[in-house]
């Protein structure tokens, strides 16, 4: 049966001849009515966003600050604590703020983990200033992380802890676990954390020592400004803003979508500066020389050998991650000395792996499911 043309429908409708076409015509009219309603809501929400911009409430899961050191803060989240082993979450240093992991009620990784009964501790590295230019990767691995781990054990009263590193936090926390066997780390999880920087993709190419002089960069600028960090990440996907705004217009009628967009948009435009020395060491030792994977990295006088990690290890890669591609993340499985180790590759990108609707379905249950019997 050939599809009825619009012109024919209109003609019959205006002629009053509705025999056999009533249902089709009324269905089309209803669709147009719905579309009209949606457009009205779009205009209303857009006007609201422009004329009454609000600062969305993020990071609403109850927590208390249990320790601070310079700009770093250690937060403990409210939880029924049904698992004996506390979990220390180590996110990326600089780049962005960690409230992405606790964006909105119902859309928060931290909320999920606390609901599953984990004693959840978050290390917030903080927002850096020129006084922090001397902060290095070495200091993070050999001073800050051991202190944070000690505080987690003290505050929780536990004898062991699990460590979860996300993005840059994963290689840094893996280095800590590998060089500090005196700290009782029961489990280690790597989520989207690059390990083998030879397979890190486009960032690795741009930061290659043939093309990028990190010493001149840091010596000239000192702190790497937040705007420059933002520009670098935006350049990875130049059309991202265009598709974001197109999807926003398309879904502008949906109040829930607008709420989520406002929260995510706030995070996506709030970048954090990099301390100069940290950036120098991060680029040179990790991106350019790939010292971590090669076993050549030394932190605090201790050689970093990932093979020293013997606890259970869970590695989560994201299929469409262009910042830490799956191969780069999965490499941890090949080098750790653990017997109990597992790799999963989940749908999503670098951020959507851990934040968003898809993460709640694909990722969070897998992480909590793996960790629960080992805690």
């Amino acid at each position, binding site marked *: 049966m050939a*599809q009825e043309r*619009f012109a024919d429908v209109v003609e019959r409708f205006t002629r009053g001849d509705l025999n056999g076409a009533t249902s089709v015509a009324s269905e089309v009219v209803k669709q147009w009515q719905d579309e009209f309603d949606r457009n009205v809501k779009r205009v209303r929400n857009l006007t609201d966003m422009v004329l009454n911009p609000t600062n969305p409430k993020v990071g609403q899961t109850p927590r208390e600050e249990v320790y601070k*050191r310079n700009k770093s803060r250690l937060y403990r989240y409210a939880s029924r604590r049904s698992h004996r082993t506390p979990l220390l979450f180590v996110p990326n240093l600089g780049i962005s703020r960690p409230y992405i992991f606790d964006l909105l009620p119902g859309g928060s990784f931290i909320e999920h983990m606390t609901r599953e009964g984990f004693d959840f501790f978050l290390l917030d590295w903080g927002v850096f200033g*020129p006084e922090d230019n001397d902060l290095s990767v070495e200091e993070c691995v050999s001073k800050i992380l051991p202190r944070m781990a000690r505080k987690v054990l003290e505050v929780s009263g536990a004898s062991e802890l699990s460590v979860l590193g996300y993005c840059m936090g994963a290689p840094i926390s893996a280095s800590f676990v590998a060089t500090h066997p005196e700290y009782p780390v029961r489990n280690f999880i790597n989520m989207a954390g690059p390990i083998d920087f030879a397979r890190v993709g486009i960032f690795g190419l741009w930061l290659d020592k*043939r093309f990028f002089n990190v010493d001149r960069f840091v010596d000239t*600028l000192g702190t790497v400004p937040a705007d420059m960090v933002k520009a670098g990440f935006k350049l990875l*996907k130049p*059309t991202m803003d265009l598709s974001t705004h197109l999807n926003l217009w*398309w879904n502008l009628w949906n109040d829930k979508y607008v709420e989520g967009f406002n929260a995510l948009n706030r995070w996506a435009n709030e970048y954090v500066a990099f301390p100069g020395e940290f950036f120098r060491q991060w680029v040179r030792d990790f991106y350019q020389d790939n010292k971590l994977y090669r076993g050549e990295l030394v932190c605090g006088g201790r050689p970093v050998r990932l093979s020293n990690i013997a606890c259970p290890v869970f590695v989560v890669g994201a299929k469409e991650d262009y910042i830490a591609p799956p191969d780069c993340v999965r490499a941890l499985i090949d080098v750790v000395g653990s017997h109990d180790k597992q790799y999963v590759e989940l749908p999503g990108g670098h951020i959507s792996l851990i934040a968003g609707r898809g993460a709640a379905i694909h990722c969070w249950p897998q992480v909590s499911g793996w960790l629960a019997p080992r805690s």
Partner: protein
Amino acid sequence: MTETSPSQQMFEIWKRQLEEGAKSWAQLMTKGATPAPPDPAGFWWKPMFEQGLAQWARIFAQTPVTPELTSQWKQFLDQSIEAWSKALSQAMSTESFAQMMGKTLDQWLVSQAPAKRLADQSVEAALQAFNLPSRTQVAGVAKQIIELEERLDRLEDTMAAMGRRLEEALRPPSAGGSAR
């Protein structure tokens, strides 16, 4: 499928007009002048644009005019953006792009360094003249506070270790294994 919808026909007319218009304009521009160099963009833009339009026309022809058309238009835009993204990604994943970006950054830094140094020195001198603290001085004070915090932390650790040793020393010897 021989029957074409009115919208498809209108689209075909518009497309033909656009092509003829472009041809006439091109002829006008090249009339009497030296032949223009081949436009590399023409090898890429025109076919891409035509393909996009043809695809949209196919979608348009296959469906009746309902609000779903707007969904299809959105799909077309999504696909166009995705195509652009892929093309840009491919271009930026090349060594020549990385080299160009590195050179541009280097040149900017080389020109920036003396200007920044000069600006910093001038600001420093001006603030000193007004007896106001500069950013370097404030950062210096902050660094001292950070060092003080570090010393306090070390002191705390030492005292905690001493406390543990004292506890162990004062604990009466037990028959069983010691609990940690």
